[in-house]
């Protein structure tokens, strides 16, 4: 076991997969020479050369489309979009092309592409660099959506995503890159579609993912001191959703709180809440509570920004209300 930063774990995953399979290549803005804005692609250029570590012009729609084309002929592109906010520029290529090709071609072709991007608020980057847009991808059949919260998961899930034969939207969080965690020295993969119980508990299920996992754990540990045993389930993969783990947890605890940073209205939490109600109504002792980002554009001012995203205090207070 070594301690790695989240961004180092992602970097290791890329190294390992590019060594394993010469058809894997990475492409994005400033990812080669400069190693990426968050250093996730650092060192790749030196080892793999400019044919497989490709700096692009600011032409997101087309280099993402190029990823689709490259995937269709059997290579395995890992395309980086600097901010999830900029994925608004590439949704045709993701929604109408990558997600649908296999289906519309009757299975003749596949799109084994990973779209790596990064989202979330937290550094005063304002409205166009702070969003959490996973719900846009979650709604689209044919896409997998992965949002790891720890270095361990980031490494194992990125490797799984690269090996997956379908388009995977892999969303990192800007506040996670510098967080640290234990990662085994030997190779491993974390299968897509499996939630992880980050803290077991009996009284209430707290369902979350990405950076909010850290806040939920903090809240859960605080609650533990009051004797409230919260189970924190980190989805890790949003789509396909690990219903089984969720339903098992909820049938044990009888109470569920969903926490995410994305806006509440139409967020992924709504779908999970609706699903739990449909499939575990009798198991539940009360309504599922959503603690989510405010329905607003993220403001620049740091205090305002902070007010838009669930805090540990809000999570603690929320959990208390469902007990």
């Amino acid at each position, binding site marked *: 076991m070594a301690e790695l930063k989240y961004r180092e774990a992602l970097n290791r995953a890329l190294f390992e997969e590019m060594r394993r399979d010469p058809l894997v290549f990475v492409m994005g803005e400033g990812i080669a020479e400069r190693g990426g804005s968050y250093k996730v692609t650092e060192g790749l250029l030196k080892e793999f050369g400019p044919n497989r570590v490709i700096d692009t012009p600011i032409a997101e*729609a087309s280099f993402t*489309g*190029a990823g689709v084309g490259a995937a269709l002929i059997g290579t395995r592109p890992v395309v980086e979009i600097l901010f999830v906010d900029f994925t608004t520029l590439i949704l045709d290529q993701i929604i109408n092309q990558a997600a649908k090709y296999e289906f519309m*071609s*009757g299975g*003749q072709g596949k799109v084994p592409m990973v779209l790596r991007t990064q989202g979330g608020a937290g550094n005063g980057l304002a409205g166009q660099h702070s969003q959490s847009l996973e719900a846009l991808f979650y709604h689209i059949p044919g896409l997998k959506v992965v949002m790891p919260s720890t270095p361990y998961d980031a490494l194992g899930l990125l490797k799984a995503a690269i090996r997956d034969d379908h388009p995977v939207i892999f969303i990192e969080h800007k506040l996670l890159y510098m967080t640290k965690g234990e990662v085994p020295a030997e190779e491993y993969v974390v299968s897509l579609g499996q939630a992880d119980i980050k803290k077991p508990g009996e009284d209430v299920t707290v369902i979350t993912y990405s950076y909010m996992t850290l806040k939920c754990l903090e809240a859960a540990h605080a609650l533990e001191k009051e004797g409230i045993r919260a189970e924190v389930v980190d989805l890790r993969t949003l789509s396909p959703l690990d219903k089984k783990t969720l339903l098992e947890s909820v049938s044990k605890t009888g109470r569920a709180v969903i926490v995410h940073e994305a806006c509440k209205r139409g967020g992924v939490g709504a779908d999970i809440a609706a699903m739990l109600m449909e499939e575990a109504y009798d198991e539940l002792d009360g309504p599922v509570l959503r603690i989510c980002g405010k329905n607003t554009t993220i403001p620049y001012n740091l205090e305002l920004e902070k007010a838009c995203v669930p805090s540990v205090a809000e999570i603690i207070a929320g959990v208390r209300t469902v007990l």
Partner: protein
Amino acid sequence: MANQSSAPKGAATGEAAVDEKILREMYRNVYATRQFELTCVTLYRQGLIRGYFHPYLGEEAIAAGACAAIGRDDYIVSTHRGHGHCISKGADLKLMMAEIVGRATGYCKGRGGSMHISSKLDNNLGANGIVGAGIPIATGAGLGIRVKGSRQVVIAFFSDGASNNGVFAESINLASVFQLPVIYMLENNHYAVSTPVECSAGDCNLANRGPAYGVPGVCIDGNDAEEVYLTTKQAVERARRGEGPTLIEAKTYRHGGHHVNDPGLYMDQEALASWKARDPVNLLRAKINDVSVKQIEAKVDAEVAEAVEFAKNSPEPSVEEFLASIADD
């Protein structure tokens, strides 16, 4: 400055004459496309084909000429007006027709239809319902070729309307920067639905868009399969030498409305007549001996008839199987 379409000046003029075998192959494809499309019009009227069907009538020489200049292993990316590309790249007319009629035996199991037809075996990466969306996909195939280190090339087919979409400019610039083996085949049929190219392009001589991105742009007569073939061949050779992309603007004209239900009354009737007088099928037929023509036509006629029978006799996809296949989604 009047924005007028100038006459094409082909790069290929004065080139060596085209091999008889190639001429016959191209004729097979223009004729097959013509017959296939006319048949589809009939089937559409009979209610056997649904959704959108955009005939390639009048433009057959472009696909035929371009595809004759590449091998089966090379890739093409097609458009919503894609039957001609599919046929010229070598598709089985039976599987095509079955797809277009929506049957389980079609290339896409009846899930794609005309607008999404593809044939993987021929390295046809497929038609697209989103105008322009195939252009970056083709560019990416070029990039993938570089990653794989193979000697393949890609032809991206698209029309004048698509060239106004940002993905065209982005893609040709990408291909230029990366020197990708992609031929951008701009089928300038002078219309995007009802919008004439003069009203949609600031400079409607679209080949001029190549040099702006460091890419050679050449304008040719798209109704002359031979010229298309020779020009494409040069571009392909250039691409295989690693010298990068070429933009070819092949001027042509739709022989009717935008889709099968559009009478196209807005079209310039005089221009239409003059383009029809230079029908690509007739132009090419005149270059081949009568015996070959008859042989080819008879063979194609039989193939098309067989395709219709095959499609009609093929089963509809099973709803149950379909639902089962998506159940875990």
